[in-house]
Each structure stands twice: as C-alpha cells, then as structure tokens.
C-alpha cells in the first residue's frame, strides 16, 4: 500500500486510462482501474475505505460520468470521496454539470501532469481532512455517548438533583461545601436483619428492589434528595441542593406516602412469610452539605447533628411509626395529627429527645 493513497481511474479509453494510471503511479499513488461507470461503482463498493480519489471520465458506455457521480453522491459510503472529472475542453458545460452534481474539480484532456499533481494533492488533502474529521466526529460521538451514559448512570445512582448539580455551572461552588437548614428523613426496615439471615440473596435483592422502587417513586414525587441507600436504610434530605421553603412538610408527606405504600408491599411479603416493618425518623437542623469522600470516590452528603438525630429516631421507631424531632414537630404543627411518644434516650446523644409520631396528615 502506498502512503500517498489510492486512486480509481474510470475511463473507457484504454490509452487515456493507461496514461492516467501511469501518471498517478508516478505521483506515488496506488491505482485501481475501471472501464466504465458501472465497473467503477463496483470497484468502489468492493474496496470500502480504500479509495481516496476518483478520476472520472464523462463520456463512457454503460454508465456515464453523470450517472456514476450521481450514484456515488447517493451512497453514504462513497459520498465523501473526492471526484475529479476528466473531460475535453469542448465539454466545459458538462464540467459545470458535474460540479453541480458534487464533483470536486476537473481536468482537461490531454492531461497536464503538473495540474494533475496539484489537483491530486488538493483532493488527497481534502480527503485526509474529511477522514480526520470523521475520526474526530466518531471519537466525539463515542465520548458523548460515554458522558451521556455516565450521566444516566449517575442519575440512577445519585438523586437527579445531585446529578444535575454535578453538570451545572454553579455546581462546583455547591459541591465545595455550604451550610444550610435541611430536613432529613431516615427510613429503615424493622425485621430486616432477621429476614436477611433467613433468606437467599436472590430473595433479599428482590425485596430490596421492590422496596427501593417504591421509595424512589415517593422520593421523586416529593422532590427529595436521596443521599444514600445502605441496605434497608435510606437517607433523604430536603431543601438542598434545590431550596424548598416547605421542606419539612415535603419530608412528612413523603414519609406518610411511603408508609401507606409500604403496608401494601408488606401484606404481599407477609403472604410469602416475610415479616418486615417500616420506620422513619425526621429531623430539622443545619448541616454542612457538599462533596464528601476522597479522590475518585465522592458522595454528595450532609454532615451535622440533624442527620444523626434522624437516624437515631428512625432506629427507635416501631414498625409504622414516623418519628419527628421537636423542631420538626413545631414546624409542621397543624398539618398533621401526631401523638406524643415521650422522651427517648438516643444513642450518642447526652440529652433525651421529645419525639412525636405522625398519625396522619390533616
């Protein structure tokens, strides 16, 4: 294979064809030949990606230059190959027609070797540029596909808000860390550890998948930001990264919706012999939010007593209970029917916490 490229000469006159082949070989090209347009198209089709330039005679039997050119331009695999039309001086009107049909340039017979060399150089350069563009386009497309897939994967793994944040201009600032009042809802399952010990991994994943799907729907409906799934434990916060004036109300409504839907799931599970209950803890307070982790592995997370409080309330909740911290209770009062649970001693906290259970929405 020649480094310079490969040309296809399509000409029915054997004298002209042989001379053109020779001249092109002198210029350092590999040359393929065809005696008419139909043969030329067959050679093009049989050598995909090989031919860098076509020298096309206009007056030919079988398929003439116009028809050949039209067929090339109609074919995605051939459209980009430069075509130099070879014609006599008398045929300048046909040259115009060929250029209109998409020919790159023309040469008049008898062919001047210097002009041939110049036209070939230009055509090969154009073809190389096209090939490079094509390559770069393909790379770009592949890259875009990867980015798109990563984004989709991200939005599957992260909450959509965080996924959007990662790719937004103001995202970097928010990711760097900021302090804000948030509502944290922490949910987990009663009886899960026991269930997990007794069951096959497939069963456990099946139950978790149903549970997470239900949770995910409720989270999305209420605009919560999922911080993480940890087995049966799920932490969701509100008012960040998207500000929400009604963040406490959203969290409580979400928890109530989850509790309702969970009872439907639980009755199905009950028939299969799984005894699982659902508990939620909700707390309001300031936290520092942003990127947590180390190089190569980060989470968007919230750090503050509020997350600990929500988690501890959740672990104290009986099946079916949604326990509110005192501050959450104050902020939501009037919207819910609640019952006082009394003071709870929570692990890691020095003072007892006055907790209330959400009985129903008002």
């Amino acid at each position: 294979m020649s480094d310079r490229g490969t040309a296809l000469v399509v000409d029915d006159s054997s004298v002209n064809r042989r001379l053109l082949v020779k001249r092109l070989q002198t210029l350092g090209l590999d040359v393929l030949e065809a005696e008419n347009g139909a043969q030329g198209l067959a050679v093009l089709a049989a050598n995909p990606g090989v031919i860098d330039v076509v020298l096309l005679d206009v007056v030919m039997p079988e398929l003439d230059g116009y028809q050949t050119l039209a067929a090339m331009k109609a074919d995605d695999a051939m459209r980009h190959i430069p075509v130099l039309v070879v014609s006599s001086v008398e045929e300048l009107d046909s040259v115009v027609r060929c250029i209109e049909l998409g020919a790159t340039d023309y040469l008049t017979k008898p062919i001047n070797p210097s002009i041939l060399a110049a036209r070939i150089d230009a055509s090969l350069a154009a073809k190389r540029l096209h090939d490079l563009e094509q390559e770069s386009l393909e790379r770009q497309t592949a890259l875009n596909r990867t980015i798109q897939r990563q984004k989709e994967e991200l939005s599957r793994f992260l909450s959509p808000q965080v996924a959007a944040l990662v790719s937004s201009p103001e995202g970097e600032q928010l990711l760097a860390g900021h302090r804000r009042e948030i509502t944290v809802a922490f949910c987990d399952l009663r009886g899960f550890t026991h269930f997990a010990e007794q069951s096959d991994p497939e069963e456990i994943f099946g139950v978790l998948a149903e549970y997470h799907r239900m949770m995910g729907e409720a989270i999305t409906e209420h605009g919560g930001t999922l911080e993480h799934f940890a087995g049966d434990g799920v932490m969701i916060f509100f008012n960040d990264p998207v500000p929400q004036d009604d963040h406490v109300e959203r969290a409580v409504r979400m928890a109530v919706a989850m509790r309702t839907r969970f009872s439907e799931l639980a009755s199905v599970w009950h028939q299969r012999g799984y005894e699982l209950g659902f508990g939620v803890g909700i707390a309001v307070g300031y936290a520092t939010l942003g990127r947590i982790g180390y190089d190569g592995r980060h989470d968007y997370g919230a750090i503050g007593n509020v997350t600990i409080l929500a988690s501890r309330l959740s672990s104290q909740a009986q099946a079916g209970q949604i326990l509110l911290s005192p501050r959450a209770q104050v902020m939501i009062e009037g919207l819910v029917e609640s019952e006082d649970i009394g003071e709870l001693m929570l692990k890691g906290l020095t003072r007892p916490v006055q907790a209330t259970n959400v009985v129903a929405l008002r």
Partner: protein
Amino acid sequence: MPDAKALVLDEAVLAELKETTGDDPAFVRDLIETYLADVPVQLEGIDGAIAASDADALVRPAHTLKSSSVTLGAMRLGEISRTLEMTGRSGALDTAARGNADAAHAEWRAVHEALNAWLAEQASQ
C-alpha cells in the same frame, strides 16, 4: 513553426509524454501499441453509426478517438474526430459526416505510419 493542429504526428507531444512518465520507453511504446490496436475499433464504431444514421452512437467512438489521438500527438486525426464528435452531439448527421469519416480513415493510415516510424527511431537510439 507549423500549426500543431495540422500535424499528422506532433513528436513534441510524444517527447513530453516520455519525459513526464519517468523516461520509460517501454511505457510509451505500450501506450502507442494500445492506441494502434484501439483506433480500428473506434473507426468501426464511427462507420457503423454513420451507416445507421445514428448521431448518438457517433459521439462515443469519435470522442474516444479524439482524446486518445490528441494524447499521442496525432493532432489532425484528433481534429477530424472532434468534428465528427460535434456532428454526433448536434443530433443530426450532415452530409459531411461520411466525408469526415473517410478523412479519418486516410489520416489513420498516415498516423499509423508515422507512429511506427517514431517507434523504429526510438528503438534505434
């Protein structure tokens, strides 16, 4: 200097051809031999088209004869073929067409002789 179009064989064209194809005497000889074998085919095509009064059928053989003749320096034969091609393109065979075809045959004999002489001269160099 005589009008190049009036020459039976413009040897300058052959000299240039030789020079610009890498001074490969065998190649130019091959090319001339190809031409010598092709011309009768085109003349036959021209005769047939005129006999059948088919102007369209005249275009291609006349065109091929024109361009290959000019390529090898057979200027006058090129010119006669060009006239025939134009006649064919006009869509109507005039009375001169047969006369031009006869002229092409006569010119072809002269070209044949001149090319053979040129080849002999090259071989003796």
